[in-house]
């Protein structure tokens, strides 16, 4: 299971949320597109409120156009 801490030792590319081995959490960045963060996550917004997701991975909006902010809703896509 993607969130199972037992996977931590066997996998050094993308790991579980609870990193018992003390490994840093991996975040994937792209020039155009969301930040990809291993879930579950809890995110504190500017107004002090928090939102959470326990999805195995979450996509965080970086273009600020998302109507589901802070989650990506693919609004960064090029329009044509």
């Amino acid at each position, binding site marked *: 299971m993607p969130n199972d801490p037992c996977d931590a030792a066997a996998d050094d590319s993308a790991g579980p949320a609870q990193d018992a081995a003390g490994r840093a959490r991996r975040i994937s960045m792209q020039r155009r597109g969301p930040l990809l963060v291993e879930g579950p996550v809890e995110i504190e917004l500017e107004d002090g409120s928090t939102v959470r997701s326990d999805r*195995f991975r979450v996509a965080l909006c970086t273009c600020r156009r998302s109507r*589901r902010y802070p989650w990506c809703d693919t609004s960064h896509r090029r329009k044509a």
Partner: protein
Amino acid sequence: MNDHLRGPLLPPSRGPLSAAVTSYLRGTGPLPRPADAAAADPYGDDLQLALYLCYELHYRGFAGVPPEAEWDPELLGVRAALEQRFGSALRADTPVHDSLDQALAALLVEPVEGTGVSHFLSAEGELWHLREYAAVRSLYHLKEADPHAWVLPRLWGRAKAAMAAVEYDEFGGGRAERMHARLFADLMRDLDLDTVYGRYLDAAPAEMLAVVNLMSLFGLHRELRGALVGHFAEVEITSSPGSRRLAEAMRRTGAGPAAEFFYDEHVTADAVHEQVVRHEVIGGLLEEEPELAPDIVFGIDATEYLEERLGRRLLDRWGAGRSALRTPLAAPEQPSPEAPETHRHRQMSHTS
């Protein structure tokens, strides 16, 4: 016990091929000859239903059909002839991109003025359109992500791990009540539709059967694992913006909280899935088997091709003020402000 007596009912046939397959499954008649399949309209109601019946034996089967029918060698022979007809037509008719990058890039551009079904439903869809849309789509959504699970043993390493992670999310992350197929049943309940698996098979036009048959074809053949991955990428990449429009349509028409939630969930879920499928599943598969790139492109483009045909069918019928289904839906149970629509809906002609 008596497992084979439960399950969906066999639907009425739509021509000689589907009639023969149906009577063979009931044990009352011979199979069609493979040559009959070779002469049939590859996208028509008859061939598509015959193929759908063959494939359904790998999912839930039908009431009264013994489970061994799934691996009946003669039936598999007929299935192969039907697949050959459908598959070769798709190879001939699908406009394919020159490269995977081009195929993916085309999916990642959002049209400023879209003309698809979700654009129509978002802008002017009425409750009866949404009910028809959900009834048609239920053929897939009530087994959402099932055909894609078949690809797992055919993948390795990064592609497999990522595909399994996305499937885990599709299946509710370990919680039955969050399973996407279950969320769709909740949506159907909001729309006063029957949530029984297979209930709208007879109502669904050939264009929808072809969409589902494509997934089963890709899922059941290891040879087509690249196409399955391409198909899955197409679904995940196009889902998020489409789901946003469908969620708007559900909100605007007051369809209900579960109806909104199904599409809201897909806006954010598929924004993630899209990334994972492109970078990890496709990326991982190409690392292992770079020669599969053209198959991935075919999977993407064949899906687009069949989805466009389905979209045209729905919009053409709705544009003419007619039902897009083969058999009209029963009216919603409770009297509602939509009563005049319901009345009109009831009067719509049966078309097939």
